[in-house]
């Protein structure tokens, strides 16, 4: 029975993926402007025909879609065409190898930082529920959660980067090159993305913790004489974290969008830069592969949540939830 639900979800996910990528290939075809003109403005007729064939512009959209799909499944993300005139280009995969780790690291750091700060804060607020401290902090968090990350990023860049001159305002340093500079170059991007998430996560955790605190097993634990801290961290946190985890996984998807903008603000040349450039320069194959990658990531995150649900909350695992 459980397998059937899982398979059903998997089938749905695959169908969604197919529809996303297929509609992208139709959309990309509609982009105005002949890509051949942009990619090879001074090419000969033979050169144009060759590029047309290579880009799959001479076949219909269905054939084109499947040839792209099979290439992708073999790990070939297509070619990034440069207007050198000879139709030469760089494999999208090698560009991804540079850009993707940057964006993934930013997202990973942001998630880790957000959860590390949000969980103690959420527990503290639930513990102090309805006191003046809780009300003040909760109000501030509500306000903070609605400030867009780029506004925080720009303010940080000005105060910390320009006025105090503490951190570099633009540029990315790989970890292997110089670990301390690597972290210094990512502090501001990660902080600007994290602040909103910390506020969102701690508010969610606070509400769920307060609800769990009303349950009988807490009364039981309390009357056994266990300390408040032990009860909060060991008994109440786990069953209260399912909303937090759903939100975290959904935010991973939203973070892709936020990270794209923040990358641009801090000139980190990550995945977002790649995608915007691909769209601006009509890199058909690249656009399609990049968007497919995002959609896969998004769907995988959602799939992981369903699994994590069962692992984290024993009530779901036992089928009693």
């Amino acid at each position: 029975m459980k397998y059937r639900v899982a398979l059903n979800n998997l089938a749905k996910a695959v169908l969604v993926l197919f529809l996303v990528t297929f509609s992208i290939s139709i959309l990309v075809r509609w982009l105005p402007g002949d890509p051949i003109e942009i990619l090879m403005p001074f090419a000969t007729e033979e050169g144009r025909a060759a590029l047309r064939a290579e880009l799959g512009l001479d076949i219909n959209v269905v054939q084109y879609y499947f040839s792209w799909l099979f290439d992708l499944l073999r790990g070939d993300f297509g070619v990034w065409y440069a207007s050198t005139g000879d139709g030469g280009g760089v494999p999208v995969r090698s560009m991804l190898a540079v850009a993707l780790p940057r964006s993934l690291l930013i997202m990973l750091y942001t998630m880790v930082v957000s959860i590390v700060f949000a969980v103690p804060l959420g527990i503290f607020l639930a513990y102090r529920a309805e006191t003046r401290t809780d009300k003040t902090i909760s109000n501030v968090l509500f306000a903070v959660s609605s400030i867009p990350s780029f506004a925080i990023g720009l303010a940080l860049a000005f105060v910390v980067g320009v006025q105090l001159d503490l951190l570099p305002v633009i540029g990315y340093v790989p970890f292997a090159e110089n670990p301390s500079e690597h972290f210094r170059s990512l502090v501001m991007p990660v902080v600007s993305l994290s602040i909103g998430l910390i506020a969102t996560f701690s508010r969610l955790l606070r509400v769920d913790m307060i609800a769990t605190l009303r349950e009988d097993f807490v009364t039981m634990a309390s009357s056994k004489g266990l300390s408040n801290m032990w009860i909060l961290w060991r008994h109440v946190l786990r069953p209260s974290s399912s909303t937090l985890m759903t939100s975290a996984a959904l935010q991973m998807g939203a973070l892709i969008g936020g990270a794209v903008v923040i990358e641009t603000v801090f000139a980190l040349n990550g995945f977002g830069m790649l995608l915007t450039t691909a769209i601006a320069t009509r890199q058909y194959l690249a656009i399609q592969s990049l968007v497919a990658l995002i959609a896969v990531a998004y769907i995988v995150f959602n799939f992981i949540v369903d699994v994590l649900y069962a692992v984290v909350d024993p009530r779901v695992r036992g089928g009693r939830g």
Partner: protein
Amino acid sequence: MCCTPLLTHESEVGVAKGRPGPLGFYLASGWLLVCVFTAFFGDFFPLPKWDEYDYDNLGLPLFSDGHLLGTDYDGSDVLSGLVHGARTSLGISFTAVFIGSVIGGLLGIVAAYRRGWVDSVVTMYFNVSLAIPTIVLTLVMVALFATPNVDDPSSGWPRELVLIISLTLVIIPILGRLARGSALSWSGRDFVLVAESIGMKKRSILRTHIIPNVLPSMMSVAFLAAGVVIVIEGGLAILGVGANPGASWGSMLAKNRGELAITPHTTLVPAGVIGLTVMALNYFGDYFRLRIDDRESRI
């Protein structure tokens, strides 16, 4: 610390939700009123034109003579920009959310009430569009419609129109899914069963019982969505595909972003205005949700 009572058995559920107080709501309403008023009547304010360049006064600081919020690097007045930007940013946002909620709401409600294949198709459409992050979807849409043809630079649609269309496409699945969920929960209520059993037509049940109950919860989310749209518009401007330079709040800060070290206020003031507006919209939406929760708990 050890003596603080841990249990909150006796507390009321509503209080524990961490809702903001009424003060925030009044401030939010005040700010939104100012913004909406500005968007409508900005033309009558005694200000320089937003796209007029005062070449004698480049990069004036805040509170300068004749330019209350200073000027940017090519001499356009920051306050006039904000006033004009209110019309563009709020116009784009409210239009997209309004059209998106009407279309999404209808789709969601019909899907929930008809069920069957209609429901499957609509839900699949919602899921597909929600699987693409909003910024990517709008990026592709703007590139698709707004970029002029290489041979004919005047081709392509106006940026604002393209932004409205793409952001509407973002809003439809968000509000549509909400409307579907809400309509599903309402159509199982007793009064709907009663209406069905006395032979009321489906169409009139929808009109008299389902839609009036779904609308309030859509309203509260619509305010949040308006905030989300303003943020996306700002993000798109930073990525270089927003409204024309300086025409909206987002494109104001995108235009002046490179001058952060020299004229920081030309970037930070629009950023602050965006932040305040989004915050106000969130307060407003949350206030509505609180009212609805109250109302529904009494039904």
